[in-house]
C-alpha cells in the first residue's frame, strides 16, 4: 500500500532563497559577510589560476606523474591495460543498465548516463589538450574513451541476449583482468620484467591502493569473526592484533616494515621495498576493516546464528550464508570509509622514499626548474584525490540503497 506523500506548498525559488539567506536580520548580515568573502576568494583564485599560475610544470612532467620511471619502450603494455580496463568498464556499465533493479525503469541511455557520457567525452577531449600532450597520445585517449562508450552501448543493447549461464561468469572478468594487469605491469610470461622500483606516480598509487583494498577485506572479515569467536585463543589473538595495529601510527608501521622486515626473514627472502610497503598497508587496513565489519556483526541478532544452527547448518556455513550477508550490508558504509582512508594513506609511501603520486610531486618540486610551483601541483593532486574519494563515497551510497531490502530499487530475490 502506498502512503500519500505529505502536501507541500512550494514557494517560488526566489522567495525560498530570500527565506534561506535573509530570514532574520542576523541571518542577513551573516549572508552578506559570507557572500562577500566567497566572492573575494573566488575572484582571487581565478586571477591566480588564469594569470599567475604556471601550469607548464604539469604538462612537462605528465608522464612522470602518470607512470613514474616506467621504461618508455614498455609503456605500450600500460596503454593496452588502460584499453582493456576501459572496455571492461563500458561493458559492466552497460550490463548494469541492461539488468536494473526491479524498481528502476530499463532504458538504454537514462539521463544520468547521458550526463556521464558527456562528461567523459569532454574530459577525453579537453584533458589531453590542456596537458599539451603530443597528438599521438591525444588520439589514443580519444580512442580509449570512444571504445569505452562503444562497449557501454553494445552491452546495453545486446546484453539481454547473453544466455543466463554465461551471465553468471561475467563478474569473474574483473579478477581475471586484475591478474592480466599485474602480468602486464610487472612482466613475466614472455614479457620483459619491470622491477617495482621503476613503477611510480599514479600507477603506483592505484596499484598499492587496489592491492591493499582487495587483500585487507578478507583478512578484516576473518579478524572480525575471530574477535567475536567463542574460542579464547582466536578471540584474544584477534584482539591483540587489532589493538596493536590501531594503537600505532601508520608511518611508524611503514618504517618498521622497511627496517625490521629484513631482520625477520632469512637473507634474500625479504620482498622488495614496494611490496613490503604494500603488505604493511594491507595488514594495517585489515585491523580497521575488522572493526568496521565487527560493527556489522553486532547488528545481526544472535537468533540468526542459532536458527541456522538448529536447522543443521555447521557454523562455517551458517556464518557464510546467514550471518555475513546481513552483517556486511550493515558494515558497508564503514568499510568503504576505511577503503577511502586507505586510498588517502597511500600518500604516506612518499615519506619512506617511494615515488607514488605525492612522492613524484615532491621530486619534481626539488627540481630547480620547477621551484616554487608547489601550489599548482598540489592543487591538481588534491582535486584528483578528492574526485576519487568522493566517487568511492557516492558509489558506496548507491550500493547501499541497492542492497537495502526496503528500498524501492532493490532487486527481488
Amino acid at each position: 500500500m502506498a502512503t500519500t506523500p505529505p502536501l507541500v506548498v512550494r514557494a517560488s525559488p526566489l522567495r525560498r532563497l530570500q527565506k534561506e539567506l535573509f530570514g532574520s536580520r542576523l541571518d542577513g548580515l551573516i549572508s552578506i559577510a559570507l557572500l562577500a568573502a566567497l566572492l573575494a576568494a573566488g575572484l582571487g583564485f581565478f586571477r591566480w589560476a588564469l594569470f599567475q599560475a604556471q601550469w607548464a610544470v604539469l604538462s612537462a612532467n605528465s608522464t612522470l606523474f602518470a607512470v613514474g620511471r616506467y621504461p618508455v619502450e614498455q609503456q605500450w603494455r600500460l596503454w593496452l591495460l588502460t584499453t582493456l580496463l576501459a572496455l571492461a568498464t563500458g561493458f559492466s556499465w552497460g550490463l548494469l543498465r541492461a539488468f536494473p533493479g526491479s524498481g528502476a525503469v530499463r532504458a538504454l541511455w537514462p539521463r544520468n548516463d547521458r550526463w556521464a557520457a558527456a562528461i567523459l567525452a569532454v574530459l577525453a577531449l579537453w584533458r589531453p589538450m590542456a596537458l599539451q600532450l603530443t597528438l599521438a597520445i591525444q588520439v589514443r585517449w580519444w580512442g580509449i574513451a570512444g571504445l569505452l562508450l562503444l562497449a557501454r552501448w553494445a552491452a546495453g543493447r545486446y546484453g539481454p541476449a547473453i544466455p543466463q549461464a554465461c551471465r553468471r561468469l561475467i563478474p569473474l572478468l574483473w579478477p581475471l583482468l586484475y591478474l592480466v594487469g599485474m602480468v602486464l605491469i610487472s612482466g613475466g610470461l614472455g614479457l620483459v620484467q619491470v622491477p617495482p622500483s621503476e613503477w611510480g606516480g599514479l600507477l603506483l598509487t592505484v596499484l598499492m591502493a587496489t592491492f591493499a583494498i582487495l587483500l585487507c577485506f578478507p583478512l578484516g572479515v576473518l579478524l572480525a569473526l575471530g574477535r567475536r569467536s567463542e574460542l579464547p585463543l582466536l578471540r584474544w589473538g584477534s584482539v591483540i592484533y587489532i589493538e596493536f595495529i590501531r594503537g600505532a601510527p601508520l608511518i611508524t608501521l611503514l618504517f618498521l616494515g622497511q627496517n625490521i622486515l629484513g631482520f625477520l626473514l632469512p637473507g634474500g627472502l625479504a620482498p622488495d621495498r614496494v611490496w613490503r610497503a604494500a603488505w604493511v598497508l594491507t595488514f594495517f587496513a585489515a585491523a580497521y576493516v575488522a572493526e568496521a565489519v565487527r560493527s556489522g556483526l553486532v547488528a545481526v541478532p544472535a537468533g540468526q546464528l542459532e536458527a541456522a544452527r538448529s536447522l543443521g547448518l555447521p557454523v562455517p556455513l551458517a556464518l557464510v550464508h546467514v550471518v555475513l550477508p546481513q552483517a556486511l550490508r550493515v558494515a558497508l558504509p564503514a568499510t568503504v570509509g576505511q577503503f577511502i582512508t586507505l586510498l588517502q594513506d597511500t600518500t604516506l609511501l612518499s615519506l619512506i622514499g617511494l615515488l607514488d603520486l605525492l612522492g613524484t610531486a615532491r621530486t619534481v618540486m626539488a627540481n630547480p626548474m620547477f621551484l616554487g610551483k608547489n601550489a599548482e601541483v598540489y592543487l591538481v593532486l588534491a582535486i584528483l584525490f578528492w574526485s576519487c574519494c568522493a566517487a568511492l563515497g557516492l558509489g558506496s551510497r548507491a550500493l547501499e540503497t541497492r542492497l537495502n531490502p526496503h528500498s524501492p530499487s532493490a532487486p527481488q530475490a
Partner: protein
Amino acid sequence: MTSRSEVTPWWRNRRYLPWLVQGAVALVIGVVVAFLLTNLLLNLTARGLLLSWSWLGQPAGFDLAETILPFDASLPYWRAMLAGLVNTLRVVIAGLVGATVLGTLIGTASFSSNGLLRRLARVYVEVIRNIPLLLQLIFWYFVVFLALPNGRDALQLPGLVLAKSGLFLGSPELVDGVWQAPLRFTVEFGALLTGLVVYTAAFIAEVVRGGIASVPKGQWEAATSLGFPPLLTLRRIVLPQALRVIVPGLNSQYISLAKNSSLAVACGFTDLYSVSETTLNQTGRAIEVMLILLGSYLVIDLVISALMNGLNGLVQLRER
C-alpha cells in the same frame, strides 16, 4: 542411500572440536613466531645488534631545530627522544583544543537557520575529509607558511606578527630586520598545527552534528515553548543530551589526531617520529627505536582514552 554410522567421528565431536581448532591455530602462530624470532636473533647476532640500551646514553651528535627542553648535539640520545616526545605532546595538546573549538563551530553551523552557512559547513566537511592529510600538511607548509613575507612586510596585528620566521606573540619588535618577541612559534609548528586542526575539525564537526541531530526535535520545541531563549536551550537542554553521543565519538578522533601528528616530518617539525628516524639512521638500533616509538604512541593513546572515558562517565545519564 549410503549407511551412516551412529557414532560421531572424533574429529566432529563438539567436545574436542574447539580444542582441535585452537590447537591448529596455536601451532600455526607458534611456528610462524618461532621462525621470525629465530631469524631475528640470527640476523641481529650476525650484525652485532643484539638488544641493548646503553647507546641511549651516547651523545646524539645532531641538533634539533625547535625544542622546549634545552637541547644540543652533545646531549645523549635519550634527551633527544625526550625532546621529540615533548614536541609531539605540545602539538597534540594544542591540536586537540583547536580542533575541538573549530569542529564544534562547524558542527553547530550545520544547524544554522542561514542556508548559506549550513551549506558551507557541509562543503567544508566534504572537501577536507576527501583530501589526504599529508597532502594538506605539505600544502600548508610549502604553499602558505613558507610564502609568508618576512621583515617589514610581515602580517602585523596588535600584539601579534606572522612572518616567514614564525608567529610572534606578546609585543613583537623589529630588531635589525628580525622580529623578536617573548613568545615565538616556528612556521613548521604553525603548518603542522593548522593542518591537523583543519583536518580533524572536519571529523569532529561530523561527530558534533550527529550528536545534536540525535536529540529529538521535541526537546527544542518544548524548551522554546517554556520560554527558553535559543542559546540557553542549546546549553542547558540540548548539549547535555548531545554530549552523551558526542564524547565517545570524540575519543577516536582525538586518538587519530595524536597518531596523525607523526606526519610532522613532512613539514620539517622535529617530533618524536622524526627524532626516532634520525636516531635509527645514525645508530642502526632498529628494534629498540621501534619499541620506544610504538610504546610512546600506545601510552599517548591510552592516556587520551582514559581521560575521555572519565569524561564519558561524567556526561552519561546517571541512573539511581
